């Protein structure tokens, strides 16, 4: 082949240019650590990456929901546990009232104490956290038990999404624990009101009756607390799934988008060598002895 003067230069130019371009691409990848910097770098990979990214964000939101749900359930659990303690304490007081050695004045004191325990229970039933009442069902902004201990909430349960298609009951129906006036539940506050009256008046048969009812009230509170415990268990399950995904997803994403450093560095070295060789041969080509040097 006949080689023209321009060809010698063009060939050097394009070869060096190509290798320099590859060198820059590789150094970009190595410095960012990412193989995919824009969709065209690997369109299928970019699509997978976007889906994984979306899932990762969702998992983070689920984790936040789990945190909130846990907070609500913990609050409910504390309030219910404190409620059952309060009822035990009331039971002790009432049993003391049964003692025939009690004077009316003594029983008056007992009745006062029962009354204050009832107030305590009232505030527990109206537990509020994060600006919401936790035992009112969907009635979250006004106290579920009003001044005369009447239930103003509903029986609904607020559910939180804590995983894809996974819902937990983040609130507890307070009516089921403290009574909401429907059949099948005992109104704990009514129970305490009557007990207090019986103690104050020293009527033994009433005291016995109300004490028996108090036992059922206790069971009612404890059983709701057990349900809270069950939801907390489910929450633990959801949390372990979320935290697994939270560590696993970045791994998977890295696998798709990260540069294989060994491969990239060795290719970089190869390009460097090739570039050096090209520059060396190009300089010979360009210096290129021609007949001109001899005539």
């Amino acid at each position, binding site marked *: 082949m006949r080689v023209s003067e321009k060809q010698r230069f063009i060939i050097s130019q*394009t070869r060096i240019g190509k290798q320099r371009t590859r060198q820059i691409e590789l150094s970009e990848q190595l410095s960012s650590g990412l193989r995919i910097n824009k*969709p065209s770098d690997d369109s*299928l990979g970019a699509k997978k990456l976007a889906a994984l990214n979306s899932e990762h964000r969702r998992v983070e939101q689920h984790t936040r*929901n789990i945190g909130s749900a846990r907070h609500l359930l913990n609050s409910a659990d504390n309030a219910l546990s404190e409620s059952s303690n309060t009822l035990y304490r009331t039971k002790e007081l009432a049993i003391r009232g049964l003692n025939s050695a009690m004077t009316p004045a003594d029983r008056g004191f007992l009745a006062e104490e029962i009354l204050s325990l009832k107030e305590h229970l009232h505030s527990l039933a109206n537990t509020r956290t994060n600006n919401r009442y936790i035992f009112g069902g*969907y009635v979250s902004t006004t106290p579920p038990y009003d001044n005369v201990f009447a239930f103003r909430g509903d029986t609904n349960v*607020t559910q939180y999404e804590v995983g894809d*298609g996974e819902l937990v009951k983040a609130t507890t129906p307070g009516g089921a624990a403290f009574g909401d006036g429907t059949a099948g539940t005992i109104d704990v506050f009514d129970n305490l009101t009557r007990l207090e009256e019986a103690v104050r008046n020293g009527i033994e048969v009433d005291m016995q009756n109300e004490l028996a009812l108090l036992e059922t009230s206790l069971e009612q509170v404890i059983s709701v607390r057990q349900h809270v415990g069950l939801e907390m268990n489910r929450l633990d399950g959801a949390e372990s799934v979320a935290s697994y995904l939270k560590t696993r997803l970045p791994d998977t994403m890295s696998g798709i988008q990260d540069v294989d450093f060994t491969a990239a560095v060795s290719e970089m070295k190869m390009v460097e060598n090739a570039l050096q060789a090209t520059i060396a041969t190009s300089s010979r080509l360009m210096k290129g002895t021609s007949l*001109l040097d001899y005539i």
Partner: protein
Amino acid sequence: MLGLKNTLWNTVSGMNVSQAGLSTVGHNLANADTEGYSRQKVHIGNRGPLQVHTGSEQISQAGQGARVENINRAHSTFLERQLLRDRLDRGFFDGQSGALRLFERLFDEGSSNTVGTAMDDFFNSVRELSQDPSSDGHRDMFLERTRDVTRSFNRVAQDSHRVQEDIDRSLQAKIERINELGEVIRNANARIGSIEAVGLTANDSRDHRDMAVKEIAELANVRVLIHRDGSAQIDLANGFTLVQGTTLASLRTLPDPANGGLRAVQHIGLNGVATDITDSITRGEIGGLLEARDTTIPDRMAEIDNLAFTFTQEVNAIHQGGFGLDGLGGRDLLTPIGAVNGAALAMAVEPGVLANPDQVAAATDPLAVPGDNRNLLRLADLQMARQGVLGDVSLNHFYGEVVRRVGSDVAQNQTYAEFHQARFEQSDALRESIEGVSLDDEMVDLSRYQKHFEASARVMDTVNRLMDEILQLVR
């Protein structure tokens, strides 16, 4: 009788030819690096013989020396045609690839707040609000995220239109360039006509014209016809003549209302008739730009519009089924959009809801407010729900598919552009090896013509001395 005078003239002709050769070597060397230059070569012929009487009855033919028959350029029509085709292909993919790279940036996951991430954030804010639908703060946040989604769609629509307008500006400049090149070719035609009419070859004007033709070939499909009189006829895009002999037609661009105000290309023929040739330019850089502007980008944007429309419809359907804190339902969250076409640009949050966050319909039971979050749970489920109109995939999945297509459009174009660049380089190397200037060749020619000149000079010296001899005889 052959005289010394005759010999002298022969010698002079040889010296002239050598000088022409040397001059051509000089011309070639001077233009060794000139773009589009084809090396020239002196073709030497002998001058017609003279009939002379060499004896009483003998007649012979005697040479009259040499002359320059012609100075031609080394030229391969076949390769030039191949190169024209390679240029068209390279231009097409270069043009499209450049335009699509701009478009691709709108879908770069690295840049924050793409449509994909905005939709994610929207659904996550639904979940956040579902924690406590009575919270004003959460409602404000949710509306903020809703507005982000509409803005991200708006922005893609606006930016893609901006990319199309950038393409338009580039298109205008290139059409202008074609007009300039047409003028160059017309002028070259005129020069070539007047030079070649007297039997010469207009090498340099032809080189000049070839350069202009090559540049047009980078830009748009072109067909070149060289007429018998040496003039070139340039036809663009399926037979719209740009240059014929020394007459020049022109191209112009003007906004096309039927294509959203983007520019159409018109051919104004020699007879002054304007024809829209936008769809006929299918190759070259302009062809590539038009392909990106009128096909690839609109295709992707139609998908984005479809996504925006579906998103609006589905979100509203769920929102309408729920109730705000005021216990009222049947309201839209997003302003309803009439048509799929242009949906991404039109997307907006319903002003009523935006002004009054209490209207966000979190509840499914108007009597269960403010704690009822069931409608939000339904809205959150929308993120993963398959949509029939989107080909039975979820909103996010569909968006991911659009991004994948954008990426693969760009990558594919890039591959083709590189392939055609490589092919062009190959053809160009072949062309260079035939048409380019080689120092070695020229050095050989240089010495050759130098020797010829020296030899002729020697002959002249000899004739001179013989003349002297004769004059001596007379004395």
